């Protein structure tokens, strides 16, 4: 009987090597797999390349990995803290200013599409986003039918961490509201997709048409109930 549910966070993050490219779901505080990140901190992988929309979401999670010196490079669309009065990416800002961490800025839609290309077996693709800007420097560009395009590369992950709402033994997932964000595409783009879910349900407990990420894209599921607010 296929069962992708693992009993502990420790087992959920087992075997992630140094140098891995890690895709992390989340947008703002929504859909962030904080507990998986903390388990990875304990497991000790180093020299990570992290792909995330933001460069941190407060101190728990990614910021802890950065402060522990585990992250070599961040690929993201918005590395600045969104609100200077409630900074969410201070650890990144300090390490970046000190020249201790690399940053690759990618327009948010290009980030999603590069992940999709990786997950869907598509090679490099042309997009008009960023044509004529600094973010196109060093990339092949082409004018097709009068419109300028930038050639972008698929972005594969070794591992994806996502936060979902329900998960079952086959790896099927649902997400709460906009907590979905990068979750589905990151599961597709990684060889090992690990989902922390609010609740594990029995196989068949999610209606087929309600499945948001089919289990074929997910390798491990771990239950991590939300702390009561």
């Amino acid at each position: 009987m296929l069962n992708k549910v693992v009993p502990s966070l420790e087992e959920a993050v087992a075997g992630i090597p140094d140098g891995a490219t890690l895709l992390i779901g989340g947008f703002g505080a929504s859909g962030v797999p904080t507990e998986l990140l903390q388990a990875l901190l304990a497991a000790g992988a180093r020299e990570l390349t992290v792909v995330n929309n933001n460069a941190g979401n407060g101190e728990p999670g990614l910021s802890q990995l950065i402060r522990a010196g585990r992250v070599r490079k961040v690929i993201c669309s918005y590395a600045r803290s969104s609100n200077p009065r409630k900074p969410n990416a201070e650890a990144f800002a300090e390490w970046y200013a000190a020249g201790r961490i690399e940053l690759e800025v990618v327009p948010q839609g290009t980030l999603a599409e590069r992940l999709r290309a990786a997950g869907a077996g598509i090679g490099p693709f042309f997009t008009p986003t960023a044509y004529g800007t600094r973010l196109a420097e060093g990339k092949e560009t082409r004018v097709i039918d009068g419109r300028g395009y930038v050639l972008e590369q698929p972005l594969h992950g070794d591992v994806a961490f996502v936060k979902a709402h329900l998960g079952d033994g086959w790896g099927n997932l649902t997400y709460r509201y906009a907590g979905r964000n990068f979750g589905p595409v990151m599961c597709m783009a990684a060889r090992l997709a690990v989902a922390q879910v609010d609740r594990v349900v029995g196989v068949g407990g999610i209606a087929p048409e309600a499945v948001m990420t089919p289990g074929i894209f997910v390798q491990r599921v771990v239950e991590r109930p939300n702390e009561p607010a």
Partner: protein
Amino acid sequence: MNLPKLSRERLAQIVAGDIAPGSYVNLGIGMPTLVADCLPPERGVILHSENGILGMTRLPEGEPVDVDVINATKEPVALLPGASITDHVVSFSMMRGGHLDLTVLGAFQVSQAGDLANWDTGSPDSIPAVGGAMDLAAGARRVLAMMQHVDRDGAPKIVPECTYPLTGRGVVDRIYTDLAVIDVTAQGLVVRAMVQGLDRAALQAATAVPLIFDPACGALRP
């Protein structure tokens, strides 16, 4: 020089007044978020957010906050009846695939050719952060820039060529400022309306590009 000008709230009303019912709209961070307050649900304008929400409105005072129902600025919002939520790939397909009728974006500078600079000051100690700005600039059917006419030092923000890093080339269709509404056209920048009590010479003096005045140029009540 003390010019008559529009408040940010009045400017937001003017922008909102030009948005047709039934439009699908994404409002950028900063001043454009004020436009949302002038688009109550009964106006029938459907607001989109990068994180996959289509059909949102301001969270009513006293309503509980849900961490998974937020806008692109990460502020809590409310979902309207008829709202939908998708993942990032589909959400950005709405933006990049030309499905949004328009976007309103803040701007550091707009050039006479409609180049937009709004994502980075280029300052060496700032962290470059683009978010979805380049996707919106390239993908929305109409791009409206909304900004102060001049910067804090009084320097024009409508310029022959942007000196800040570009967000997109030739993407802006119309500029809304606290002084005027200006269309970017093949012939040049055409003033469609200006704030009441402002004279043409003063507007031209605050603009680093020659302006063309629409014969039907209207007056904006402050």
